[in-house]
């Protein structure tokens, strides 16, 4: 079963029916029950992990014990489970083809739980019950692939939602756009047409070949990931929830900091709130906080040396950009619109190349292959 299997649509239809046809007070819990059934049916391990950690974290937090120690214990517990499964996936304790290698949605609901724990610690959560928290985590539309939406926003819509045909039609439109992105743009245009074009023009040119392959990888990632996000956001809209956006034309970014505000924004926001701000306030060194948050962002994808390098690469990129901003203020502002336009195009070109080169680190199966590619690309220098 994948998000593209025809069987998934039956679950979607039942979800929409439960979200609107049940008595009002059972509609959102009904969605959660369906999510639990779905998880129990396809990935029971994930169901037990999610349910177990939800109960443990909620009742530990509400136990009234010392807040800091409870916060640290619960965050450590969630992080330990996440890291355990991520490491298993990477060092091959299980076969890669195993369907339940990393429990469904673990990366997403772990970060949602940590968000809940931190916000509770800061006393920033609105009044709510255990059922509200359970419904927030057992929410089928965002279970697969995010976005990592926030609890206060979820609770607001859970309480205010009512049938709105405009919202529902927007949701259907988003789902359609999502599937067009996944099936037509990513799968056909990028992975078939662009791939054959790239192979044709780059034969005999190792640098161009790797560059175009990294570009294809990045485009495929963007269109698939944003397509799945569209499906999740669209489905949420149909059942009356407005979920935060995950992508905002990242390939139009004019600097690397801007790129991370546009690419997987819900994860970037999470890292900003729960890694960058705490580290920056503890160390008083924003550059250290930037690198730390990008490192966590990298490790969230996979606990591996490759993703450590990728996180550091982006972290150092953003840190350099921030330093450049300090130098930039000594130069006069560009007022000519043509020069400004050219400067934006050049900035976009540099940013995109930085991102594309970064994709080489993650697209290869191991670090040795990455080094081989870099060596191959720059063989003309040796």
């Amino acid at each position: 079963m994948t998000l593209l299997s025809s069987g998934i649509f039956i679950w979607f239809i039942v979800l929409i029916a439960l979200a609107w046809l049940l008595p009002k007070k059972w509609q959102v819990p009904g969605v959660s029950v369906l999510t639990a059934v779905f998880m129990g049916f396809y990935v029971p391990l994930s169901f037990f992990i999610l349910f177990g950690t939800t109960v443990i974290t909620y009742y530990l937090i509400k136990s009234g014990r010392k807040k800091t120690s409870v916060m640290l214990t619960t965050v450590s517990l969630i992080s330990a489970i996440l890291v355990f499964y991520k490491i298993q996936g990477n060092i091959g304790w299980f076969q890669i083809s195993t369907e339940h290698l990393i429990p469904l949605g673990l990366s997403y609901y772990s970060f949602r739980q940590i968000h809940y724990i931190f916000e509770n610690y800061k006393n920033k959560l609105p009044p709510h019950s255990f059922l509200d928290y359970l419904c927030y985590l057992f929410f089928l539309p965002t279970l697969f692939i995010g976005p990592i939406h926030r609890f206060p926003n979820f609770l607001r819509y859970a309480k205010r939602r009512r049938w709105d045909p405009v919202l529902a039609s927007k949701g259907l439109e988003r789902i359609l756009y999502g599937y067009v992105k996944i099936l037509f743009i990513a799968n056909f245009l990028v992975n078939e047409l662009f791939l054959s074009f790239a192979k044709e023009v780059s034969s005999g040119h190792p640098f161009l070949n790797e560059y175009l392959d990294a570009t294809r990888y990045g485009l495929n990632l963007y269109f698939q990931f944003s397509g799945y996000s569209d499906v999740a956001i669209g489905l949420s809209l149909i059942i009356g929830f407005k979920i935060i956006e995950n992508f905002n034309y990242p390939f139009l970014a004019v600097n690397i900091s801007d790129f991370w505000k546009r690419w997987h924004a819900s994860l970037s926001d999470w890292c900003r709130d729960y890694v960058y701000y705490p580290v920056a306030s503890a160390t008083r060194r924003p550059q250290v906080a930037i690198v730390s948050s990008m490192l966590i962002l990298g490790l969230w994808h996979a606990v591996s040396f490759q993703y450590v390098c990728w996180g550091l690469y982006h972290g150092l990129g953003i840190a350099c950009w921030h330093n450049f901003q300090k130098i930039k203020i000594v130069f006069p502002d560009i007022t000519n619109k043509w020069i400004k336009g050219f400067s934006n195009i050049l900035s976009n070109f540099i940013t995109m190349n930085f991102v594309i080169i970064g994709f080489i680190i993650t697209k290869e199966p191991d670090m040795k292959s990455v080094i081989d590619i870099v060596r191959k690309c720059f063989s003309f220098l040796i």
Partner: protein
Amino acid sequence: MYVFLLNYFSKTVADILIVAWYAALMALVYLFYTTDVADFKYIEL
């Protein structure tokens, strides 16, 4: 999308265009439908 079209065309033309637009998109999904998409490892199924 429909609101966007209404800014530039009359209601009748916008109605026709929006139906054509959705029909074209649905046709694309139908024609290119496959479960065999290129690897995307963020899906943890």
